[in-house]
């Protein structure tokens, strides 16, 4: 029988939730890395036992953790635990935490050392943390990292070493990128399963970008986005994109939850149109796609950018079966009064069982699951630290 493994990153550690294919009873393990902020935990599609985690701290910086046994044990890649005294021998260790921007002209076209600060002045790029880890679809040792200040890194040796894909920062618009309230972070990485050289990424608050040549060159893909907080609402860059999702069978069709507006592209991001339709609020963070129905999508409306909680205190997932515009509220099992949590951008995931399971976590520490594609919901856990990210693995 199939199993599912839900990987949860929280403000104070990581948790692994497992169940059989019925998804009725759950085992909870954790906290792993207790006390640390875990921005993201994600498994490799090529080897489900390989899981990467971003462990971070305002005190101690960035740590990359890796599990090779499905989350039971963890290592810092290239640095076995407990190693001591003999550390001088062999290749350098402790490099898995090293994220250094590459401003070499050979790698980015031209050196790039500053971006726009809140006050409009130029500000140096400063690495702060890894927001998102996206393992390769084919190779368990290859993984991408989206970081703050916004840049894209890649490791091809299981997280032991990281190299910036400098063409993104260097393509020309970088000096005009600016941080949002949460920092200037590259938080979304979507890999095209039909084309290994194509990748979509999103940055707050710069917008979305695409490469068609494996990361060498990039271009903004924000035509059709309108952001009223920009001097030119239809500017080429500067949009606060919160999340992009695509169905694996249709990588040209992208769905976006923007700061305000739910958007759709049918041409790989070349153009976007709004599909917010009858949502009670088109502000939000998450967006995801049904595992088997490419036109069925999910969002969680949030009241506004200054009131990060559900409208009317009712926690509702909205589902569209028409690829947007027409939305239905999914409420069974979710609190419909006095609920003032948020659902952050990486905190929704969908398994590939039939019917597919939908999972999301809240800043109140609940992880909700639906095992019937959203019709009914129940909490797996209620009292975790604030949930930053939720991913799910469907296991044989």
């Amino acid at each position: 029988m199939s199993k599912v493994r839900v990987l949860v990153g929280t403000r104070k550690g990581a948790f692994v939730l497992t169940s059989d294919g019925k998804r009725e009873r759950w085992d909870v393990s954790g906290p792993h890395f207790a006390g640390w902020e875990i921005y993201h935990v994600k498994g490799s599609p090529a080897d489900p036992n390989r899981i990467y985690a971003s462990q971070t701290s305002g005190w101690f910086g960035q740590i990359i953790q890796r599990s090779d046994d499905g989350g039971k044990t963890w290592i810092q890649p290239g640095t076995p635990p407990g190693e001591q005294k003999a550390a001088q021998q062999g290749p350098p260790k402790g490099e898995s935490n090293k994220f250094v921007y590459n401003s070499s002209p050979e790698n980015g076209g031209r050196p790039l050392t500053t971006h726009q600060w809140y006050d409009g002045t130029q500000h140096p790029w400063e690495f702060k943390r890894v927001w998102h880890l996206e393992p390769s679809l084919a190779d368990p040792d290859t993984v991408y990292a989206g970081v703050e200040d916004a840049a894209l890194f890649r490791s091809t040796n299981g997280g032991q070493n990281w190299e910036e894909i400098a063409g993104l920062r260097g393509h020309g618009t970088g000096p005009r990128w600016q941080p949002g309230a949460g920092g200037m972070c590259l938080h979304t990485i979507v890999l095209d399963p039909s084309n290994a050289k194509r990748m979509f990424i999103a940055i707050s608050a710069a917008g979305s970008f695409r490469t068609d040549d494996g990361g060498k060159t990039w271009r903004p893909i924000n035509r059709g986005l309108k952001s009223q907080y920009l001097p030119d609402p239809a500017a080429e860059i500067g949009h606060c994109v919160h999340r992009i999702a695509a169905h694996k069978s249709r990588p040209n069709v992208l769905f976006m939850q923007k700061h305000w507006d739910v958007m759709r592209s049918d041409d790989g991001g070349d153009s976007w149109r709004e599909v917010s339709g009858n949502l009670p609020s088109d502000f939000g963070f998450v967006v995801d796609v049904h595992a088997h129905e490419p036109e069925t999508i999910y969002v969680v409306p949030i009241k506004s950018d200054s009131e990060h909680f559900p409208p009317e205190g009712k926690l509702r997932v909205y589902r569209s079966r028409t690829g947007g515009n027409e939305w239905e509220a999914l409420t069974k099992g979710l609190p419909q009064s006095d609920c003032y949590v948020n659902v952050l951008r990486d905190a929704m995931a969908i398994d590939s069982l039939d019917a597919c399971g939908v999972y999301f976590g809240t800043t109140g520490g609940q992880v909700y699951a639906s095992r019937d594609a959203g019709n009914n919901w129940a909490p797996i856990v209620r009292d975790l630290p604030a949930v930053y990210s939720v991913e799910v693995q469907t296991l044989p």
Partner: protein
Amino acid sequence: MIRVVLPPHLRTLAHVGMEVSIEVQGAITQRSILDALESCYPMLRGTIRDHDTQQRRPFLRFFACGEDWSLESPDHPLPQAIAQGSEPFLVIGAIAGG
């Protein structure tokens, strides 16, 4: 041997207790102690000093013999009591956050 006291999260990361003893070659300075510490416990690289710039992380401070050495030159010799191992070199995390 030089004694170094680590904050709790770094003890967990390095799989050690509150205090470690390390061998340090040459002059006993903040830099030489931290270099030796990171050599013995490479999982700590980047956690006390920035991986790239080698600057002390802002929420950490270094104490020796009851005095804050955080703003001193990293190459300034530390007190004899540290060099002799009678007093530990302290890496202290700021009390902040939730």
